[in-house]
């Protein structure tokens, strides 16, 4: 293989693509501007929604309680709750999010409390709805406090200490280093973002350099040159790889800068995410693992683009591929899935799980070697398929 020829092809492709607006958009604009904006926007939105929901005084209905004015009046005077008169359609009003919850006060609640008879309060809510969840938390807190008060009074009457029913207290304290907490928090998200960026960075060059050339009639012109087809495909492949890696690098730099410029106190800042505590060695590990993944993507996309007759057909092949690669990335984000020797062989899923561990400062060296080796093997296979495709007349002249 003649490296000079590969370099000639690569330099031409680079110059050509840097003049293409679509490539510039996917390689530079999306990672530089769109991705950081999306991330910032997502964090800001999540925070705003949560803050607003927490700030809202939830509206609830009291069902029953006509013979228990004590508890009803305490509920009505709680500043953290807004009480609405009971209606027959309370269930519908919860479903329509017009009220956040309803609480059923059983008959004789006040008198049962005085007599020491057991009873049950039921809270009705909208499962999974954040504001209804906050209302339930308030109501839970209200009744826990009431229960504690009643118990304390009963113990006092009998001359007993509160420690009789609460012999000890429990306190939670995090002892995991900040790097591990941060890694665990963002470790699943990182490969997901990388996979998308690698794909976005590689897709347009891969199409333009293959199906695009067929469509424009320049493929035949190029094949007339004495340069071996393996050298042509190597030059093109390196260009697609450059674009994929450039997209990832630009996005990482851009997101880091945007987090730093927006400051740790800004909504969704880096400190809040724990990014400032990420283990630098973990970042290096992630970068090393990205390389074979980018090679794999570039080779597969180049092959798909080469097979296609034109730009549009190439897109129809590549869009389903996007879902195929995102699935393992999503599975990797799920809780409870841990890296093992079997998952280490599954592309993308292995990257996802390894990133989570490396960013948390956990290094299973034998598994990491297995992941790098398997990803490299897949990348070499994909690249050899691309070379074989480029040497097939039925593919190159498939127009």
């Amino acid at each position, binding site marked *: 293989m003649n490296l000079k020829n590969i370099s000639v092809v690569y330099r031409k492709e680079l110059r050509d693509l840097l003049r293409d607006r679509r490539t510039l958009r996917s390689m530079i604009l999306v990672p530089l501007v769109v991705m950081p904006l999306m991330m910032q926007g997502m964090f800001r939105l999540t925070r705003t929604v949560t803050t607003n929901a927490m700030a809202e005084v939830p509206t609830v209905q009291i069902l029953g309680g006509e013979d228990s004015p004590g508890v009803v009046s305490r509920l009505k005077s709680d500043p953290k709750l807004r009480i609405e008169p009971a209606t027959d359609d309370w269930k519908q009003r919860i479903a329509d999010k017009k009220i956040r919850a309803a609480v059923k006060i059983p008959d004789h609640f006040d008198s049962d409390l005085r007599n020491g008879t057991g009873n049950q309060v039921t809270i009705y809510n909208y499962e999974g709805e954040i504001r209804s969840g906050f209302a339930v938390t308030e109501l839970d807190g209200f009744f826990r406090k009431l229960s504690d008060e009643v118990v304390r009074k009963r113990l006092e009457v009998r001359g007993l200490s509160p420690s009789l029913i609460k012999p000890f207290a429990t306190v939670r304290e995090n002892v995991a280093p900040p790097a591990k907490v941060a890694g665990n928090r963002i470790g699943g998200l990182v490969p997901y973002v990388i996979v998308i960026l690698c794909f976005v960075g590689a897709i347009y060059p891969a199409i333009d350099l293959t199906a695009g050339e067929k469509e424009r009639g*320049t493929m035949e*012109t190029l094949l007339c040159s*004495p340069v071996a087809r393996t050298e042509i495909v190597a030059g093109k492949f390196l260009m697609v790889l450059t674009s994929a890696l450039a997209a990832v690098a630009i996005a990482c730099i851009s997101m880091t800068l945007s987090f730093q410029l927006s400051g740790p106190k800004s909504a969704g800042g880096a400190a809040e995410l724990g990014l400032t505590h990420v283990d630098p060695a973990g970042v290096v590990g992630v970068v090393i693992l990205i390389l074979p993944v980018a090679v794999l993507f570039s080779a597969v996309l180049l092959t798909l683009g080469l097979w296609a007759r034109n730009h549009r057909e190439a897109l129809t092949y590549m869009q389903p591929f996007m879902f195929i690669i995102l699935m393992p990335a999503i599975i990797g984000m799920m809780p409870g899935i841990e890296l093992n020797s079997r998952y280490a062989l599954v592309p993308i899923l292995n990257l996802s799980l390894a990133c989570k561990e490396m960013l948390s400062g956990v290094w299973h060296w034998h598994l990491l070697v297995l992941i790098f080796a398997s990803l490299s093997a897949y990348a070499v296979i994909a690249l050899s398929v691309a070379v074989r495709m480029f040497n097939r*007349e039925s593919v190159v002249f498939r127009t």
Partner: protein
Amino acid sequence: MISTHQLTKLFYDKQRGEIRAADAVTLEVRPGQIYGLLGANGAGKTTVMRLLATLIAPTSGSAEVAGHDIVREPGAVRSRVGFLAASTALYGRLTAREMVTYFGELNGLSRPEVKVRLERLATELDMHEFLDRRCEGLSTGMKQKTSIARTLVHDPAVMIFDEPTLGLDVTTSRAIVRFVQECRARGKTVIYSTHMMHEVEKLCDRIGVIHGGRLMAEGTLAELRQRTGEQDMEEVFVKIIGQGGLS
């Protein structure tokens, strides 16, 4: 020099089955000669041209181009061939200068060598005015000149033209024809495929009539007229393919 012996190319089509796009084609083209391959659309002209340019490989048979075997030494063949076809387009985002330089480098020329040759070609083809303009913004005539410069930059001994005037206006077509004649005058071996009778009459020293992948008849224009008893080239052509070839 081009010589082919029983050159055959088969394709397989799901609906039509086996297609003999080139069927035992044997021909010879000498330096300083223009060989015209005349045939209707789908006759197999492009297949023969692509075989000679080593863009595709033959199923059987053999061919030598500029002394190199098309199967064993495809790279050596391509470095001695200039291939110009209606389907060989230019890179729209490159300038004419960059386009020619790229192909010079692909043909193993150094930058200074390319610069010298490009200067000479630009003068010969009157390209200086648009040399630094992107190909996508050039007129058809300018594009053709750039394509010609691209095929000539490495000074090939053999020129292969596959319907180079297809879809071009009269002025540009005439320029191409003049260029082909110049190639002959410079002693290059030229093979020229077309379905246009008048181009064959004007240009070719020898003519091969191809139909269904087979070379039906071969000879000078005078020989073909004599054998068919017709004067009009169109009549000559129709008679040859209608008779299934002339011995």
